[in-house]
């Protein structure tokens, strides 16, 4: 098509308007806080039980949520059980997600097979807290609702752990009655490795702007200078600084592990997941895992928001570890979004020479001072790198006058690093991190019982029991109750989140819909709701549907029809049939 004269001017004007609109929304996105979410696959074991009972235990535990008598939506308990099946579905999901750029997500999901729907997040139960609870690869899995607040992420994670434990108790009781075996016991552990080469998830999610996400994933200069010197554009890149941050933050977010499963021998490691990270960047989450995972499923409007799916971190018991894991990573991404790291002095943008080797080395280096080669032939240490990021974050928070919680994150980040720099076992902040708390207790136990072998079965038992979700069997809980581990939130606050969604994202609307209008819901996911009247609510703006927006609309206890009409100004509602047929990448408001 050739345009000339007035036509061309009108065309150029229209394009400019669209571009400006996208840029404006992208900038708005960059200025907003990062949205956070956690996913946990729990380790599950059944003792004194048949093979069949063991096989069905994850389902029994998840289904037991029905016994809690809480509002929920049952979406079917399809599960992908094997790694092979998961890989196949992952490949299909990637293909579908390419279409998702152009097509409506609900339409994609409606056409997907049951197994693919499971992989795309559409099975199990959606709870009144806005969380998802399901079975994945033979593990009970709990995904927190979304929030922008690092304190709230601690609360919703702990509330989820509590729900899982309540389900475990009920499933164990049922199984004992069914089998007549009073010695049968179900154990659930919130950890990431069985010590025998098998790992399972503690995933994190961070919202990013599409530009930053694409720059991390698809930048042409993301390859590390691991084998050859490739020039300054390679040495300093967004991707490399992300890798460096993720590798070195292990000294804060590690859960601690007795022994090793791959690579160099170790008697105690900082990270449980490090041995399972085999590439800098990769798509797979089950075989050759990457420090950066390339999954590109935003669960929101594709052109305005992306979800950075992080798989290299540990599941944490410590409130401080959870708080800092999400808090410092969110601050890091925020600084990247706004060019703060890129424009800083020093070598924060300089990548590691080999991030995978560094990941394994950092996990094994209990001195925290092992030199890590950088791409520019200089060296750093994990501690030094984290101190540099922390210093920058402190000035970023102050300069941008962020909410007090971010000042608190930066201060606790600094306190922990100071503690790690000294005698960490005696520092109240550093010793409240999972890997240090566990290390300290192990040392104490070894000393008391004159155990010389650090991988003694007693040490392994302690390391595992630290993660037990049953407070009576959990060493973490025992340390917490004896005041050996500092708290970030109170038990009262955790209790309040067992039945309530976070207030600052669409999770609030999701939770309230489940609490008050469950009988009108056919299906509900992270970013959509299908109602019994064949209407679809597209909840593709994660920051819409907050308590401030929704609570006034519910004040007079409206009927479902009236409430649906009221929220239609926040989200698109459309007939299910139209949702199936729509092929459009529309650009809506972000706020």
């Amino acid at each position, binding site marked *: 098509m050739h345009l000339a004269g007035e036509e061309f001017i009108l065309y150029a004007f229209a394009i400019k308007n669209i571009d400006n609109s996208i840029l404006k929304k992208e900038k708005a996105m960059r200025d907003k806080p990062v949205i956070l979410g956690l996913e946990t696959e729990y380790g599950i074991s059944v*003792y004194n039980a048949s093979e069949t009972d063991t096989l069905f235990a994850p389902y029994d535990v998840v289904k037991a949520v029905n016994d809690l008598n809480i509002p929920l939506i049952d979406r079917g308990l399809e599960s992908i059980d094997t790694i092979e099946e998961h890989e196949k579905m992952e490949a299909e999901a990637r293909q579908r997600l390419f279409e998702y750029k152009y097509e409506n997500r609900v339409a994609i999901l409606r056409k997907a097979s049951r197994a693919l729907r499971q992989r795309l997040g559409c099975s199990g139960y959606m709870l009144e807290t806005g969380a998802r609870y399901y079975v994945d690869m033979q*593990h009970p899995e709990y995904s927190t609702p979304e929030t922008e607040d690092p304190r709230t992420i601690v609360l919703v994670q702990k509330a989820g752990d509590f*729900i899982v434990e309540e389900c475990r108790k009920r499933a164990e009781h049922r199984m004992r009655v069914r089998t007549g075996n009073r010695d049968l016991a179900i154990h659930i552990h919130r950890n990431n490795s069985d010590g025998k080469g098998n790992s399972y998830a503690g995933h994190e999610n961070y919202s990013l702007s599409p530009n930053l996400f694409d720059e991390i994933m698809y930048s042409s200069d993301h390859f590390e200078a691991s084998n050859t010197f490739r020039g300054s554009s390679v040495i300093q890149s967004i991707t490399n600084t992300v890798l460096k941050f993720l590798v070195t933050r292990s000294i804060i977010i590690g859960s601690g592990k007795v022994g090793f499963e791959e690579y160099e021998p170790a008697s105690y490691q900082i990270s449980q997941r490090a041995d399972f990270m085999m590439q800098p960047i990769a798509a797979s989450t089950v075989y050759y895992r990457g420090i950066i995972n390339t999954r590109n499923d935003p669960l929101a409007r594709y052109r305005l928001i992306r979800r950075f799916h992080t798989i290299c971190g540990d599941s944490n018991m410590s409130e401080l570890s959870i708080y800092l894991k999400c808090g410092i990573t969110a601050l890091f991404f925020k600084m990247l979004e706004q060019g703060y790291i890129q424009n800083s002095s020093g070598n924060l943008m300089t990548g590691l020479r080999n991030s995978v080797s560094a990941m394994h080395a950092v996990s094994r280096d209990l001195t925290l001072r092992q030199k890590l080669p950088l791409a520019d032939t200089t060296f750093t240490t994990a501690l030094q790198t984290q101190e540099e990021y922390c210093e920058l974050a402190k000035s970023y928070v102050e300069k941008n006058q962020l909410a007090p919680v971010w000042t608190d994150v930066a201060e606790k980040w600094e306190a922990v690093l100071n503690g790690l720099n000294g005698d960490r076992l*005696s520092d109240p902040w550093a010793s409240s991190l999972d890997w240090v708390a566990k290390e300290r207790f192990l040392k104490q136990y070894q000393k008391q019982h004159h155990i010389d072998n650090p991988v003694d079965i007693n040490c*392994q038992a302690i390391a595992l*029991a630290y993660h037990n979700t049953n407070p009576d*069997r959990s*060493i973490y809980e025992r340390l917490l109750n004896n005041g050996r581990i500092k708290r970030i939130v109170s*038990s009262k606050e955790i209790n309040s989140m067992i039945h309530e969604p976070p207030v600052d994202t669409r999770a609030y609307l999701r939770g309230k819909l489940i609490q008050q209008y469950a009988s009108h819901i056919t299906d509900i996911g992270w970013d959509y709701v299908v109602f019994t009247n064949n209407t679809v609510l597209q909840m593709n703006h994660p920051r819409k549907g907050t308590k401030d927006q929704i609570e006034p609309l519910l004040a007079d206890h409206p009927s479902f029809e009236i409430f649906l009409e009221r929220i239609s100004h926040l989200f698109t509602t459309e007939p299910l049939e139209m949702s199936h047929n729509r092929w459009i990448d529309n650009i809506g408001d972000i706020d």
Partner: protein
Amino acid sequence: MSEQTQIQPKRTDESVQESVQTPEQVVVAHGEETIFDDEIFIDDLIEEARDVAKNFKQKGGQ
């Protein structure tokens, strides 16, 4: 929603909160070795924990 809350709340004893507020000087640095001046006993759970650890094997996940 009160009738829905059949599950009991988690720890609510204020003693836990109080203990958190107490300054922790439970260990002291002594030369190169950290000496623990308090002990947390786990004799009641170590035997079971050992059995669990010996047989702990999981399916690979994500």
